[in-house]
């Protein structure tokens, strides 16, 4: 806050400071100096007073001395010549019998930050290291670090470094810690202070003498130490165990950081340490300081990535307080979503429901989307709440609910019926562009099921002239096109009007180009249009919330106890936005659309490049099966899958007795897959998705029997498409059985007699005893042997690629 007429004020101050009457009266002199400092800290430029202040420095009044030093340190760099005058006073003070004066002089001498003064400072600093008062030694030790940073290129004085290492044994703990800090800075180029076994043990033994700040520093520096043996490691860990549950959050966090560093090779110990800090972290979450609460919450989110069950029983501690700021509430909700399980889901949803009507719209929206996230696992309960919220007819709530539903449907297609029925009548309440885009996206995906869809669209198209949001216009174009494909008679007229408007009158290039693109596309015929526009409606692979595999600790340990977790504002710990429906649909899901029509031959090429081990197998199959392609749409929900699967099983028993119209094939096969248990579910899922096979469920790694359920659709140029559902089963070496291929088949085109001959049976591949085998059971509908064979070879290739990668 610069004062008006600050120049006058400075002139006034200077007159007062140089007034001999003032100078002779200690109290007045001090008060005048005080005024100058006050002006300085308020942002007034008082550098002109430098010479007067230098004079004021020579005084016996310690308070005045301190004040003057504050001034001098701020302005010394502007007046290097005048600063030389201060050095004499400072050097004299360094001889003062009072240790406080000595330390004060030494500290400010090094704080002037003038390279030209270094030669005068070195001698008192060297003396300071040997001073009998600890407070002087503390200052002197850090003084060397300051000096070094003033001249970063100067040679490091080995004698000083040695002396500093020696001072690590100083009886005063602050001197010891300051030595560490100074050595860190001076030896930065060599990688910091040398942390060897004697130093580590010395530091650890004296850890308790230091205060909180010193302990944190020591623990941080010790992260560089690598214990030589496991015994030593465990000795260190047991020494540190008490600090792990320290009531001071900084010590607790620093200790955990050190633990995670030391135990990076021992995940079990790290996990135990995480369990141990649960208490102190929860306490920090209830701290009176909201900043501490926030920090603790951010770190709990990190911990939950590796130990999702860590806070499950303590979910009530994350209920939001009434007066908490919105950013803490949001973090708490993010944590609550992670903690949901069968026991607490009712309570949790009840609590979140309470937040949905919060006065703060951001909090309300965050609560609604949190319910949506839980909806991935508990869709019925959540949809009930969401549809209930629509009844409140509040603009921001409706918008958030529609956006949430849009996200939810993308992950759980089985919710679409409820969502479609809830959509009716929402459009009046939607005012913001995100909400309207979400509504349009839903209409595009499920237009055929929402009876009022054309009317809603008509409303949008009538108002398109006054529409301000680019995103809404783009989405509107896409939606109208897609709705035209499924309900042509109702939409034809309005599509024409919209295209006409967008091409002829719209000023924005993006919208115009998009409209032109669609217009030309329609010229190519309805088949082509369908191919381009028929996007994916859901992506169940994003998966459910609970039972999500835990990440290894190493993935986040580096960012623990740094500013990183606090800075990534609002970024959710789960990569949820990977493929969720974009509300800004400038690019209509380029990756999914591309891979939808990805051809099998391409895939094989990719895999050939990736794995040499399995190339023999693949080459041949690639030639045979070139025209086969896989796709994920239409999506199959877990419920549908289960239904189909069970049905097949039931029929298998009954097939001999009854003639059935349904045509399906059942195949059991064994393939070698040496690296089954080590292969993580994520990588398996990712690999499968690359070739458009959807994995629906799997058992966690390292459990036996290990199962994976998957499905895909095969598209064959000549024979049309079939649905393949399958199970991979690995039962372990002990219970390995002889492979068998069973096949049941009822098909309109194929004669029943082919049942035994059809699939050339027992295609058992079994080379050496070391490799494991996986039992593959596949069911196909309608029957298409070639497609099934093709699929099997793709599957084999993927598994081989995976195993060669992981081994």
């Amino acid at each position: 806050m610069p004062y008006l007429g600050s120049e006058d004020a400075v002139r006034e101050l200077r007159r007062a400071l140089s007034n001999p009457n003032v100078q002779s009266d200690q109290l007045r002199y001090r008060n005048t100096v005080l005024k100058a400092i006050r002006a300085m800290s308020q942002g007034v430029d008082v550098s002109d007073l430098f010479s007067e202040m230098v004079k004021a420095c020579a005084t016996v009044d310690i308070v005045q001395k301190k004040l003057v030093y504050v001034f001098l340190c701020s302005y010394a760099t502007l007046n290097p010549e005048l600063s030389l005058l201060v050095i004499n006073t400072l050097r004299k003070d360094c001889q003062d019998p009072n240790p406080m004066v000595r330390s004060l002089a030494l500290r400010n001498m090094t704080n002037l930050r003038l390279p030209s003064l270094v030669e005068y400072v070195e001698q008192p600093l060297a003396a300071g290291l040997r001073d009998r008062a600890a407070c002087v030694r503390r200052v002197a030790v850090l003084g060397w670090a300051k000096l070094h940073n003033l001249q970063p290129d100067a040679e490091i004085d080995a004698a000083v470094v040695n002396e500093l290492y020696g001072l690590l044994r100083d009886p005063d703990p602050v001197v010891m810690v300051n030595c560490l800090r100074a050595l860190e800075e001076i030896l930065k180029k060599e990688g910091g202070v040398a942390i060897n076994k004697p130093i580590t043990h010395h530091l650890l033994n004296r850890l308790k003498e230091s205060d909180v700040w010193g302990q944190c520093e020591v623990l941080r520096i010790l992260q560089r130490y690598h214990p030589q043996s496991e015994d030593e490691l465990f000795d260190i860990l047991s020494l540190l165990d008490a600090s792990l549950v320290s009531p001071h959050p900084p010590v607790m966090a620093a200790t955990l950081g050190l633990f995670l560093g030391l135990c990076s090779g021992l995940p079990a110990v790290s996990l135990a340490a995480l369990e141990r800090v649960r208490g102190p972290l929860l306490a920090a979450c209830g701290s009176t300081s909201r900043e501490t609460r926030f920090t603790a919450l951010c770190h709990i989110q990190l911990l939950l990535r590796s130990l999702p069950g860590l806070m499950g029983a303590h979910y009530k501690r994350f209920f939001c307080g009434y007066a908490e700021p919105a950013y803490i509430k949001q973090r708490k909700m993010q944590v609550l979503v992670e903690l949901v399980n069968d026991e607490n889901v009712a309570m949790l949803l009840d609590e979140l429901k309470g937040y949905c009507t919060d006065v703060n719209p951001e909090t309300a929206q965050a609560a609604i989307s949190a319910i949506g996230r839980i909806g991935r696992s508990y869709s019925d309960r959540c949809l009930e709440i969401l549809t209930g919220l629509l009844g409140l007819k509040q603009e921001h709530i409706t918008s958030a609910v529609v956006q949430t539903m849009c996200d939810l449907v993308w992950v759980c297609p089985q919710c679409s019926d409820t969502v479609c029925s809830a959509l009716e009548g929402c459009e009046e309440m939607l005012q913001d562009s995100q909400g309207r885009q979400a509504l349009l996206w839903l209409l595009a995906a499920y237009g055929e099921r929402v009876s009022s869809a054309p009317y809603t669209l008509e409303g949008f198209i009538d108002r398109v002239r006054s529409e301000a949001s680019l995103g809404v216009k783009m989405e509107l174009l896409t939606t109208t096109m897609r709705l035209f494909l499924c309900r042509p008679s109702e939409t034809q007229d309005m599509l024409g009007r919209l295209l006409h408007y967008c091409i002829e009158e719209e000023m924005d290039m993006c919208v115009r180009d998009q409209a032109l693109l669609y217009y030309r596309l329609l010229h190519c015929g309805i088949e082509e249009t369908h191919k381009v526009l028929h996007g994916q409606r859901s992506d169940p692979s994003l998966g459910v919330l609970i039972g999500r595999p835990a990440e290894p600790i190493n993935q986040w340990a580096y960012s623990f106890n740094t500013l990183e977790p606090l800075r990534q504002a609002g970024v959710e710990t789960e990569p949820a936005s990977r493929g969720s429906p974009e509300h800004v649909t400038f690019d209509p899901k380029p990756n999914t659309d591309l891979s939808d029509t990805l051809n099998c031959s391409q895939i094989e090429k990719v895999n050939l490049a990736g794995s040499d081990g399995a190339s023999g197998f693949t080459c041949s199959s690639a030639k045979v099966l070139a025209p086969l392609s896989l796709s994920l749409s239409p999506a199959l929900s877990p419920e549908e899958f289960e239904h189909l699967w069970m049905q097949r099983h039931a029929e298998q028993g009954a097939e001999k007795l009854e003639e059935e119209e349904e045509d399906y094939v059942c195949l059991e096969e064994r393939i070698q897959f040496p690296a089954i248990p080590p292969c993580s579910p994520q990588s398996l899922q990712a690999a499968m998705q690359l070739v458009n096979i959807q994995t629906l469920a799997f058992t966690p790694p390292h459990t036996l029997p290990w199962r994976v359920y998957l499905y895909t659709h095969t598209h064959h140029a000549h024979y049309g498409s079939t649905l393949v559902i399958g199970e991979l089963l690995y039962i372990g070496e002990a219970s390995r059985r002889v492979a068998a291929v069973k096949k049941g088949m009822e098909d309109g085109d194929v004669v029943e007699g082919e049942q035994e001959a059809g699939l050339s049976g027992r295609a058992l591949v079994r080379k050496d005893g070391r490799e494991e085998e996986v039992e593959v059971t596949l069911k196909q509908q309608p029957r298409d042997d070639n497609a099934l064979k093709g699929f099997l070879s793709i599957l084999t290739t993927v598994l081989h690629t995976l195993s060669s990668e992981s081994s």
Partner: protein
Amino acid sequence: MISQVFILSSQGDHLIYKDFRGEAGSDVVSVFYEKVTALTGDQPPVVMSHGDLHFVHVRQGGLYWVATTTSPGSSPFTIIEFLNRFSALVKDYCGSLSEKSVQMNFALIYELLDEVVDYGYIQTTSSDVLKNFIQTEAVSSKPFSLFDLSNVGFFGAETQQSKVAPSSAASRPIQSSREQGGRSEIFLDVIERMSVVIGSKGVVLKADVEGEVRVKCFMPSCSEMRIGLNEEFSIGKSQLRGYGAAVRVDECRFHQNVHLDEFHSNRVLRLCPSQGEQTVMQYQLSDDLPSAPPFRLFPTIERDSGGRLLMYLKLRCDLPSKRFVVISALSQELSSPDQSAELKLQNRAIDWKIPRFIGGTQLSALFKTSSPPPHPSPPPPPVGPVVLVFELPQLTVSGLQIRFLRLSPVQPAPSQRWIRYVTHSDSYILRL
């Protein structure tokens, strides 16, 4: 490692600015203020970045306490804890935390900062160490008040009031006690914060208590102090001590200077308190409160055809009688002149203030709200929860009591010891 520390008032005035490492200019102060005021409500403000510089700040006493650092690997726990500790020190030395007191004592604060941090490294925050270095006298912002005289009875007789310390007694600078001599006082506060959620059917959904025992010591030198807690105090679920109603907490943490050798046998804490304020013990209790929550609400809500909302609220205080409760805010009317109610449209809340609520009684209020009908058929607006903000003096929900507070050996100067209990509402929510 801290690069700079500065204090800003809520209007952005520069109060204190100190650069420890010369890594950034002083213009970052304005940068920080612009950034912090530009944030929307839901963006976390605690850590912000500007180029290579990271701002970490806390809010205490309506001021921004900011530290900047250039290394993103700095521990947020350490910096935040330091800023909180630093503001506590300033409070100890200046008596209270406000823009005015910081402005008046800036020389003292510079002096403190100089001793506390050197070259960006925290040296010490212990008031025992600091008292040897700090020379500047605190300037108290409190003017002379007649209230101080009221403690003195006629002809020096002890009045009732002189036996009770005024509530502001503990908010004064610690240093001045040295000069005033005789007033060596020690305050022991047991402070509990309740966070309770009561469902619409009166079921307690959540009840947490966070408590702490705080010592504020004005004695220049204090030898050992012994604090006796209830003998039947127990930690954890399984452990039960003594007969009758045990005082139980889930978790308990102690200050590192507390000696616990007598704790397990007699529930006695021993410590040598340093000057200023420190938290001796923190404890926490969830779900299993020894008594029913202190307030219960019996609401009746009706809507008539004209879109009017009638709320009849009956609030009962289930505390033992003769205890007063100060309720400063409650989202709700008024039969007596000292209560007041106000409709706050911005927060969409009704604020019902009850200055004093006697235990074992009940209060009731009737609110009618009407709104001009904007729609032909206005949807019924949901009525949000009732939030109680209160302070219960002389009471701890957990039942923790201080049996005795003994200073040994007996101080040469007569010392005064005050023990105070208070329970605050952290978040007391009653769903409708």
